[in-house]
């Protein structure tokens, strides 16, 4: 089962972890991305996220398909938060269950990389003290890399 959600609500690692839990699997690996309080010496007040929602979910489904081709996984949950995400709170939680830990550990690392490369979600970083705001770009964005290479 793939559980893919875009939500404006705070994310709960406990409940997402329980969603992927299964009595016949012994491993749950997860990754939690949170809002940091600074970026290159500038104080971050909050992040604001927006998404091309339908396409984001579609791209997440493709990621799940690719993960399942490579690893033996039970459940995959990918939750991305939209709207304002204050400092210290989670913008992304990925949790994956498997019978053997290697599968879910490797799959989680791959999932976050793939999400940062392909899922159409954008982050605006808002700074303190009149420092303004800025749309960010993932280093992993899959066409930024192509542009660099050409």
């Amino acid at each position, binding site marked *: 089962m793939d559980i893919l959600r875009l939500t404006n609500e705070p994310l709960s690692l406990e409940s997402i972890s329980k969603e992927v839990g299964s009595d016949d699997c012994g491993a749950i690996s997860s990754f939690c991305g949170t809002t940091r309080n600074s970026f290159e010496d500038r104080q971050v007040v909050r992040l604001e996220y927006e998404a*091309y929602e339908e396409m984001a979910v579609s791209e997440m489904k493709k990621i799940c398909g690719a993960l399942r081709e490579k690893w033996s996984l039970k459940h995959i949950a990918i939750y991305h938060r939209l709207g304002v995400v204050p400092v210290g709170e989670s913008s*992304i939680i990925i949790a994956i269950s498997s019978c053997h830990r290697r599968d879910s550990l490797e799959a989680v690392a791959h999932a976050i990389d793939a999400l*940062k490369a392909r899922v159409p979600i954008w982050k605006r970083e808002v700074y303190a003290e009149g420092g303004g705001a800025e749309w960010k*770009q993932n280093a992993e964005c899959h066409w930024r890399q192509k542009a660099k290479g050409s």
Partner: protein
Amino acid sequence: MPAAADVTLLLFAKARELVGSPQVSVSVPTECSGAELRELLVQTYPQLATLQGTFILAVNQRYLEADESVTIRRGDEVAVIPPISGA
């Protein structure tokens, strides 16, 4: 004149800010490449010029590569996608 179709153009993040709207209607050729379509959109919306070279397009929620050809129909959804920054 090659055939054209009216489509919905979705704009996100910086693109939305530059154009001033999350979506507009626009006429595009029914047969073109990603690069051609991108060029045409910048001509139609010069405000996107500062993003040129960094944004990519999606047609009906599917990424369109610069060298890829696509058939577009009336009512299709085209999206301007600036570099992503999810998670």
